[in-house]
């Protein structure tokens, strides 16, 4: 057996794997019930079975007919962009809006092709001021302005 279309093969493997997981987990953890009174496991098990069949179909096709390879992954932007979003959420509570925003901007900007300290700092500053005026003042979103160790935050 030779994989003639790697891209489809891996897509099929992903679908078949997910489908099999949902089937197995439904049977192991939830009641199936009957067609009249479906239990919590019934619908996911049926769908999971369908997905594994369809996934197997994709795999079968990828063995029969040729197709393109999987395009190379670029991990740097992927990891940094995801980290940037995470940093914002996880730094908001301890660090406050300014810290979270700045962190998200700097980490995100590292994912780009050029990174210039000055430019990125300006972007971060502008976004902090903008967020404060529009989101906190204008839309009254309850974001903390100061790091959590400052008890009486002067900015509000």
């Amino acid at each position, binding site marked *: 057996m030779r994989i003639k279309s790697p891209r489809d093969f891996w*897509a099929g493997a992903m679908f078949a794997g997910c489908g099999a997981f949902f089937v197995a987990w439904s049977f192991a953890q939830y009641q199936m019930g*009957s067609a009249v009174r479906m239990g919590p496991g019934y619908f*996911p098990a049926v769908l999971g079975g369908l*997905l594994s069949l369809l996934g197997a179909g994709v795999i079968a096709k990828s063995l029969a007919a040729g197709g393109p390879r999987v395009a190379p992954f670029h991990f740097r*932007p992927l990891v940094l962009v995801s980290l940037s979003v995470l940093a914002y*959420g996880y730094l908001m509570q301890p660090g406050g809006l300014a810290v979270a925003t700045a962190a998200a901007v700097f980490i995100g900007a590292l994912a780009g092709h050029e990174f210039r300290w000055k430019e990125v700092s300006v972007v971060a500053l502008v976004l902090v001021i903008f967020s404060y005026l529009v989101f906190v003042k204008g839309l009254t979103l309850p974001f903390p302005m100061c790091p959590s160790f400052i008890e009486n935050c002067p900015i509000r």
Partner: protein
Amino acid sequence: MEVLDNLILGAQVAFSWQNVLYCLIGVLLGTLIGVLPGIGPVPTIAMLLPITFNLDPVAALIMLSGIYYGTQYGGSTTAILVNLPGEAASVVTVLDGHQMARQGRAGPALAIAAIGSFVAGCVATLVIATAAPPLAEFALKFGPWEYFSLMVLGLVAATVLAHGSLLKAICMVVLGLLLGLIGTDVNSGVLRFTFGVPELADGIGFVLVAMGMFGVTEIVSNLEQGARREVFLGKVTHLFPSKEDLKRSWGAILRGTALGSVLGILPGGGALLSSFAAYTLEKKWSKHPEEFGKGAIEGVAGPESANNAGAQTSFIPMLTLGIPGNAVMALMIGALMIQGIAPGPQVMTDKPELFWGLIASMWLGNAMLVILNLPLIGIWIKLLSVPYRFLFPSILVFMSVGVFALSNNPWDGLIMGVFGVFGYLCVKLECEPAPLILGFILGPLMEEHLRRAMLLSRGDPTLFINPAEKPISFSFLLASLLLIAVITLPNIRRKREQVFVEET
């Protein structure tokens, strides 16, 4: 004249000064973000959704729809001025619109796109006002069988319209349905697939999936491709199209409007399908098909009218049946639910001010776009010349704000990140995210209707396909089957592949 009475009621709601203001903010924000290449209507609406949480439902919906047609409009501006579609529905506008810009005719191209969109918007508003009430009345008779079969049809239609492999698109739908089931099972109260994580008890937020797979993934893909942009930065002069231009385009505008209005109503249809179909139609209709791709104004007028008409009439199934035809409408349904309104045919009778107010505001929003955008075009051009290395960190921050505002819980950011990575994997494996999103929102609904149907029929599944007992359900399922059969015919399949190859 019941329609007229209703429209007057709607106008009273839509023309109150607050709602006019929200509509204005919506179209401005929508255009502003829609102009930026690579951010389509889905991440834009998802990103701005939290802004509407504190508004009342009417204002929220008016603003969100304003954002929607604003992004459409901004997308076509980008398509004409930069050789890049601002969003998927303006892909075909690039072909002739950008050629016109290179010939120094950016002004007329922009103006005709605006005029076409406005005409289409007016007609589509009337179509919704006349077609929606009877459809909603019809839908009130639907039982769980009909709803289930209708959703099947909608999902099948969505896969047919996805790019690339049909089989993979169907897989994405099923995976979406499964992911939609995560959370508490309403019938038994059992926590399904939550793996002991308390945040998953309410299921995965739809907004997070949409923002991850459309927003985060899009940014990563843009970054890996590197910034290759051909921006037209000359001054746009001679905004107004010549007599000759108008003479050539009015037919295209009317044809595009008609086509878009019809295609928008179909499940799985909407702006994207409409613009492609309109371009093909214009090319066939024209006496000079060789001019297409070289700056034919019909190639701008037709698709731009069609995508606006399609965008608006796709509200019809959402408002009357509570079923989203495309990812944007799925977001609108999400917004309705956040506002505590159960989507479905009863919305029109229970909340006439919401329904008719929204329709009247569509006309208003379109009028605003024409009046505001032509003079503001200079600002949008300036915005286009901002380098991507400034834009994407800002977009990241705005997305993070939107996500964090949902529940002030960093967990939401994590989920968005996970779906961003998953979306990137899907791009690499050439699996379309749109069908997954539709499946995701329909998953719990389908299960609910299936359970109810099976309970009522005492476990007899043949009722779904019994033409004597359930003729409507039967015809929906038959239509789904025909659609799959037709699309797998070798001849049509080649054609479908061609259409999607042309766009890239």
